[in-house]
């Protein structure tokens, strides 16, 4: 919108999503200043981070969670903000409901007090996570003070092998460039492998941009994007649709656009991926092994050893065949209908390994409803699985869904940090297909063995 002399830009925000955990202090600050919410119609709220995933029709047992969810409700009422709260048919994980309701669209600027806001970039927009002070800024003025990031383009060319998904693409990229490899950058994902992905698969890629340090990651909008948006609840319609479409088609980068950094990857080299350590960059192809200490840069060796100690893994070990206690399918990374479809198609006619506990958590009420309508829940039940109710769940274990101490989980979520899925929990990140193969065998399993 404008620039502070010798300083940041004043950046206008088209859409602001909020949830119960990172918004209460922002509303509190605003109240203290006596300032109203400037553009309440441009903010949408949902309760997702700490909601239970069973018995959502009952009062939330956990007192502090209940207080936060209640506080969100009150703040939304007091400030005329639309809330898709617990039990609302549109409730769900913030980054799942925005796209599925057609609120997320190309060319917008979108923020949320959540680092996985980069998910929305799959539609060709500027979307990124912010802190609570920034949530307060957006509520107060619909603007943020920002410095221009550097630009990076990541090109993935070629065809993916059978059993390799968009989750594997992004885990592969992060394993190559590390968790800080894109810090300071905004990323555009390009190349034939990216173009060929569905919208939901693109969202999985953009979702994990933050795991390599990029505040945001986007993909140029194309026919796949337009087809996905058309007809959704809040998508433009009629004449407005045509006008929007015309604008959206102008958005892709110019052919001669310059980037501060450009990276190239070959899709054919990507295997189903799995992480072995305590950050998302510590991943290998599923047929691979954990690196040896001497293969790690000297200054990072101490952190590497600490990480393996936490995981109780040894350098050089193979990942396949490792025993798994829990499998978690869900989150803003892989909790959409396509993820449930691919998981269900994989386990159809097979049986869950007896000793594994599996939590399947849909990303939203609409995903849950669609899974029911498509008969996925029945397929899952026949294979010995049950589906829980929507929410962020064991991705960050703010609710009761915690992986117990010392237990191993293969998770379709985005972070394998120490204690992320519960104090002492040991997480291995993977795709829904790898999660499915693992749930059937009870051990880390290459999904390609079944295909």
């Amino acid at each position, binding site marked *: *919108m404008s620039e*502070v002399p*010798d*300083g940041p830009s*004043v950046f*206008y925000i*088209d859409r602001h999503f909020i949830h119960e*955990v*990172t918004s*209460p*202090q922002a509303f*509190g*600050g605003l109240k*203290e200043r006596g300032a109203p919410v400037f553009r309440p119609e441009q903010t949408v709220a949902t309760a997702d*981070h700490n909601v239970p995933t069973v018995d959502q029709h009952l009062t939330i047992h956990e007192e*502090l*969670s209940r*207080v936060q969810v209640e*506080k969100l409700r009150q703040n939304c009422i007091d400030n005329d903000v639309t809330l898709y709260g617990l039990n609302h048919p549109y409730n769900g994980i913030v980054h799942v409901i925005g796209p599925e309701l057609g609120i997320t669209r190309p*060319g*917008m600027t979108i923020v949320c*007090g*959540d*680092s996985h806001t980069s998910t929305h970039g799959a539609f060709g927009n500027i979307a990124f*996570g912010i*802190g*609570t*002070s*920034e949530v307060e*800024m957006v509520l*107060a*003025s*619909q603007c943020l*003070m920002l*410095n221009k*990031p550097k630009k990076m383009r990541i090109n993935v060319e070629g065809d993916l092998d059978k059993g390799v998904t968009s989750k594997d693409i992004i885990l592969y990229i992060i394993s190559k460039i590390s*968790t*800080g490899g894109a*810090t300071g950058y905004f990323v555009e994902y390009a190349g034939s492998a990216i173009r060929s992905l569905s919208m939901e698969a693109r969202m999985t890629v953009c979702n994990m941009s*933050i*795991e390599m*340090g990029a*505040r945001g990651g986007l993909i140029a909008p194309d026919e796949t994007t337009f087809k996905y948006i058309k007809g959704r609840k809040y998508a433009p319609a009629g004449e407005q649709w045509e006008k929007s479409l015309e*604008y959206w088609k102008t958005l892709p980068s110019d052919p001669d656009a310059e980037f501060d950094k450009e990276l190239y990857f070959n899709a054919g080299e990507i295997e189903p991926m799995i992480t072995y350590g305590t*950050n998302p960059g510590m991943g290998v192809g599923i047929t691979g092994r954990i690196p040896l200490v001497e293969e790690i840069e000297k*200054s*990072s060796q*101490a*952190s590497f050893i*600490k990480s393996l100690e936490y995981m109780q893994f040894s350098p050089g070990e193979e990942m396949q065949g490792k025993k798994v206690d829990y499998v978690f399918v869900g989150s803003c990374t892989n909790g959409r209908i396509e993820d449930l479809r691919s998981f269900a198609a994989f386990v159809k006619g097979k049986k869950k390994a007896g000793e594994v506990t599996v939590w399947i958590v849909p990303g939203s009420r609409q995903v849950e409803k669609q899974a029911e309508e498509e008969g996925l829940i029945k397929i899952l039940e026949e294979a010995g699985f049950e589906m829980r109710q929507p929410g962020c769940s064991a991705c*960050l*274990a*703010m609710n009761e869904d915690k992986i117990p*101490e010392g237990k191993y989980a293969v998770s379709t979520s985005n*972070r394998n*940090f*120490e*204690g*992320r899925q519960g*104090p002492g929990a040991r997480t291995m990140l993977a795709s829904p297909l790898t999660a499915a193969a693992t749930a059937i065998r009870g051990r880390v399993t290459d999904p390609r063995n079944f295909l």
Partner: protein
Amino acid sequence: MPIEKFTTLISKCVPLAIENVDTDQIIPARFLKATTRDGFGENLFRDWRYDKSGKPKEDFVLNGSRYEGSILVTGKNFGSGSSREHAAWAIKDYGFRVVVSSFFADIFKSNALNNGLLPVQVSDRFLEHLFQQVEADPGTEVKIDLEKQTIHLLPDGPQEQFEIGAYKKNCLINGYDDIDYLLSLKEKISEWEKNRVL
């Protein structure tokens, strides 16, 4: 609302020589359930600092009497992961005013600056030297001068310049807050909105 001003600081350091410290380690998600900004320092580095029964772990740098001071020195890529501002609140609430590292995650950096907590990015070499010095002599003092943008290992160790945007530097020195500034722009923003494409 003013933030706490920052000009210069001379202090001892607490060295946390671990890389990629993510915000889940700084403050685990299960402690994000407050609805105010206060009190998060109690659970700073919770699972590294306390055992399951809540007893302080002796070998962790915040425990025991070996290290003290209001400068936290950490390994590279500090503050990655979740955007939770609670991480910055927890560090500040505990009593730190400065975090020194060779590399910071973006969101953490803005959250810190918005709360009067100064992230000081130094070279890998300076960081290594600082760790060695502080671990060898916990009494080592460091001087941070925001006006001059320098970090100096006292009394006669190396000195380095650090980067900070002119705008944020001015905010910190004077205790200004972005929200007050943005609120002053409301009329201009309304004017701008008339020409929005969307």
